């Protein structure tokens, strides 16, 4: 017998005799005090408050054109290095709305050497969900330009649309986008990278991005 079967057999013989354990219902966020349902504006304001409490930055644009000028302002605050953008049609559309943006970013090529990331100061990606309750964003690698774009550059800029906001994590995890699509990597991001490993002192930008900037467009994607 191979070790796989040995382990499984050992577990089966050690299993509780009476299988009384029932699986509790899907978690629905009912344990949480700070769960807000309701109008999108209320969710946006909770998201903003929570993300800022985590030292994330948050901007709202009324439409895509306004988002494009906001991105230009944001690029201006980032020192040396261009921005690497996810080649997603919605990102391309927004970036095309302001001609001054043209030489400020490059589209992520299909094949990119890890080393090349070092030359870029920021990564711009879309998101799949915004979680109001915790100020988190949810990304799948297939929806957000892969695994590296949102973690290797020192600044991560996430572009989001208002219909992507949900009250809590369970809503995102049970959404079709997550359950029914094929992806190999998804991540729930809550603020810029941090550590408190040195005598509990909080330091931002341990290994991941030092800055997380979320730009929300008040339109449906």
């Amino acid at each position: 017998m191979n070790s796989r079967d040995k382990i499984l057999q050992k577990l089966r013989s050690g299993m509780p005799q009476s299988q009384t354990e029932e699986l509790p219902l899907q978690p629905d966020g009912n344990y949480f005090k700070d769960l807000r349902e309701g109008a999108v504006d209320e969710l946006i304001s909770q998201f903003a408050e929570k993300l800022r409490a985590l030292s994330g930055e948050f901007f709202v644009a009324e439409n895509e054109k306004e988002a494009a000028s906001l991105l230009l302002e944001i690029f201006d605050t980032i020192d040396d290095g261009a921005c690497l953008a996810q080649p997603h049609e919605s990102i391309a559309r927004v970036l095309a709305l302001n001609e001054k943006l043209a030489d400020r970013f490059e589209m992520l090529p299909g094949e990119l050497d890890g080393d090349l990331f070092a030359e870029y100061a920021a990564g711009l990606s879309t998101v799949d969900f915004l979680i109001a309750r915790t100020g988190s964003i949810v990304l799948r690698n297939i929806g957000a330009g892969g695994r590296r774009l949102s973690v290797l550059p020192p600044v991560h800029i996430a572009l989001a649309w208002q219909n992507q906001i949900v009250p809590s994590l369970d809503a995102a995890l049970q959404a079709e986008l997550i359950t029914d699509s094929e992806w190999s990597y998804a991540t729930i991001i809550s603020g810029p990278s941090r550590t408190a490993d040195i005598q509990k002192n909080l330091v931002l930008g341990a290994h991941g991005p030092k800055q997380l900037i979320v730009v929300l467009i008040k339109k449906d994607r």
Partner: protein
Amino acid sequence: MKELKGFLQRSEVKAKDDVHRETIMKAVVSLDTAAAQTKSMQFDDWQQARQEAAKIKDYALANLPDLLEQFEQKISARGAKVLWAENVEQARTYFMDIVRERNAKKVVKSKSMITEEIELNEFLEHAGIEVLESDLGELIVQVANEKPYHIITPAIHKTKEDIAKIFHERLGAPLTDSPQELTMFARAHLRKAYLSADIGITGANFLIADRGAIVMTENEGNGRLTMACPPVHVVFCGIEKVLPRMADLSLFLPLLATSATGQQISCYNSITAGPRQSGEPDGPEQMYVILVDNGRSDLYAKATFRHSLRCIRCGACLNACPVYRTVGGHTYNTAYQGPIGSVITPHLRGLAKWGHLSSASSLCGSCTDVCPVNIDLHHLLLKNRAEANKADKGNKTWAAGMKSWAYIMSDRKKLQRFRRLGRLGEPLLPILLSGDKRQRVPAMAKKSFAELWEENEQSR
């Protein structure tokens, strides 16, 4: 006996070390306070939440073999390879086979307790493989040539001055004790490692059966980089870490973050369901999941102790424990310290050698109070003690002492007689106990309560 002696010697030293006490107390009190605040800030009813979490874990344990098979089937369908290791040697051998196949020289690693359990780093270094710890706390203890002090914050015992010195002497860092600058130094130091490593190793906080995925919680981003850059991703994980459904994370992630660090949710929670798929822009070519048993199936078979496998390794029971706070992490000499370590180590590694850990507890129950999955830690410690005493047939003095005590306590007349005897022998006591300088023998009362009562009754 060697382990017991070592434990006692190390406790003696640590208990008297004021700097150690201050460093540990500051850290655990700050963790404790943050956890308590976040509990009341985010949870409507913490008790209900942890009961629910315990139920989900109990379901997962009751169906463990089926869920493991489901996990294996789903993640294999996406091209990951699942390997089952019965023991330490097998887990290491699997890894060495991958090293050989890839002709790997350099490995970058994010924090994982199970690789501590199988002492992977020491093993790989002997084999001439370069291993770089990427979590800041782990890097600090690695560079200091030590073992982690705590399952969540490995360098909890180091002051910033200690770290400044180690980084300066061993890594050539500029001398500074600013946590900000030290962290930025580590960031720069490790950047290249992710890009040049042949293999990335991570642990897993959860295995998700219905998706076939591993979940990793962290704050620094080193885990994400480890799963994104090297061409091979190897996951080490205990077989007990299963959750039935992905949606269970919406409870477990906040629960773990709250108990571990007092955060609502950790900064990064990554769900990895395979290596790079066709059409995906990047990611490792190969992914392996090494499922480690190493004694867990034995623990699983013991009905009384099975529920200790609910543990999500949040570290809250360490922070709450007066023994951990006093003697520190290294004193245990185990991969898992504190109450949970004392509960499981004797079962995973043998009662004869590790049974003494069951007594490293004041039985105050603080650990049980804080555990987010309701493990009855202090009662399990008592049950361990009972097992250890049963097994320890060699300790005749203890058995005889307990028998005499039971005899004396069975009848109040006997007790009174013994008391009188005791008073006669009182001058001898300090001599009998002089071996232990810490024990001061209290003077016996001239009259017992019963005697006083009788006198009082008579004089009425």
